[in-house]
């Protein structure tokens, strides 16, 4: 017997699934790519209401927008892209990518430099490159940074403090702006 058959019960039965149906939840998804797990974790924790799962492959958090809309953030390692199943799991239906690296650590940027070039070309989705200032609050003007990184015209560059929810939400807003612009 399936829930759809549930009204075959006796008089004590209350309205079931068929009478309390609700609109389905809509979900927007964003991948947060970067070499530093702690930075990604901090970013997603600051940007989400809840962390659903965190393991060696994936950190997954949710931000509820309203009763029918939710934003999912997936933290992934770029160098795992070819073999990491969690990358494949989320790669199809994304709004866009945030490439996150530690501004104070040259190694961190070197690790995602190829992603900055490859992701916009490969997936044709909006990309925001975000430099974390958690360990070094002094920043350079982003115009210089843009030039240095040779960020393509389809990618945005910004700084952020992953420990501050407002800063993280600003990065997310930048990406959503890019998505909306692409729709227009």
């Amino acid at each position, binding site marked *: *017997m*399936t*829930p759809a*058959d*549930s009204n075959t*019960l006796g008089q*004590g*039965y*209350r309205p*079931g*699934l068929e009478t*309390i*149906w*609700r609109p*389905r*939840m*809509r*979900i*927007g*998804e964003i991948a947060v790519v970067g070499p530093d797990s702690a930075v990604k974790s901090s970013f997603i924790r600051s940007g989400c209401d809840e962390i659903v*799962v*965190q*393991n*060696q*492959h*994936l950190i997954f958090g949710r*931000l509820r*927008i*309203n009763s029918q*809309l939710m*934003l999912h953030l997936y933290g992934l390692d770029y160098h*795992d892209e070819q*073999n990491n*199943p*969690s990358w*494949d*799991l*989320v790669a*199809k*239906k994304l*709004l866009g990518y945030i490439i996150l690296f530690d501004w104070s650590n040259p190694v961190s940027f070197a690790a995602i430099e190829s992603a900055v070039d490859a992701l916009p070309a490969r*997936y*044709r*989705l909006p990309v925001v490159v975000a430099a974390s200032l958690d360990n070094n609050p002094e*920043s350079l003007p*982003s115009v210089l940074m843009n030039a240095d990184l040779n960020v393509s015209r389809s990618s*945005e560059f910004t*700084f952020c403090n992953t420990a501050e929810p*407002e*800063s993280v*939400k*600003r990065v997310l*807003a*930048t990406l*959503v*702006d890019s*998505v*909306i612009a*692409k*729709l227009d």
Partner: protein
Amino acid sequence: MDRKRILIAVNNPPDIEKLRKMLAGAGYEVKVCEDGTKALSLSRDFRPHLILSELNLSKVDGHHFLREIKSQAATRMIPFVLMSRHRSVDERVHSISLGADDYITLPLDLREIMLRFEIILKEVETSESIPRSESKGFSGKLADMNLADLLQTLEIGGKSAAVRLESGDDSGVVFIRGGQVADAVLNELEPLPALFRMFTWSEGAFRVEMREVDQTSEFEETTEHLIEKGMLYRESWESLCQDLPSLDTAVTVSDSVKGAAFSPEERSMLNLLNGGTRMLDLVTQANYDDLQALQLVSELFKKGSLKEVARKPAEQNGLSQPGAESKGNSAGTYIDNLISSFINPKQQRLNVRKMERRRSDRRGRSDRRRNSRRWDDFIAEGRISLNKSELLMIREKLGSGKKR
């Protein structure tokens, strides 16, 4: 380079000697044993790269042998192939759900079996060459990621996987093919009730094995719809639970049932009570969907027809004990005696009907399933999954901060 070792455990199939010679000729080191006990011992001492076992082994049967192999850290990675004369899909699914890597029906086709072995061993070789951190699969706690989250994640990527779930003493498997739920196996339940029951599990563990799934689809609906229904089902379940004591509580018939009127459904639930029966067992034993059964339990509880009892030691872990009557509870005995005279044969008939219906449904569903829509059909590369008004809602929620 070491020769690959193959352990064959058989009862009495006639072609094994031919197979052994063929495998040896192909460069494998082969050992054949004739009962499950020896096979278990050899699986540790011989350290095979692959095990082929007949289902009907003597002493320890094939399923038991398989469970032993898959439960031990030292042997669980050994590919295990079961062979049997059973051709039923149920048997095949059950074997795979226990962890078998392949299932071969007798009589043996030697060329086919050689090819299958080569493929399995090649897969193992490939997976061993991948660093552990990149191995295909992940695991965790259901409290962190429940079935709905897992299905959604797999659906997004259009992945094929076996999702194994464990909660309390129960364990089940959900098979996903191309992101779509293909089958759900849990005890003797049909696929949909099995899936819905697993949606209600909030404690326990999961393991996702990324692999090909051959199961014929048991579901007409897309994963997305099943998730929606499952979440609603879980919500309804939790809502009903709020009005009840813990489902681990043992209950029996209260004295107030004397002279009270009950619907046939309520009577059938009361009949399942036997002294002190755990409410969860009452729900899972009933001939109704779990949610309906829980609804009935809730109604009976509100009417005062059920009362809590201290659980007996013998009933701590399992289902109610048939025949273990409630001493000193005249109302419970009265109801039990009144109804048990006809309900048990009825239950048996219903179980048989369930199995027949399931077989016939499978045939019909597999045809209808071909016409159902998949995510892949409407997610083109680069296509955005939300519309503009939804994106603007997100933008509003995120605030108006300007880029630095």
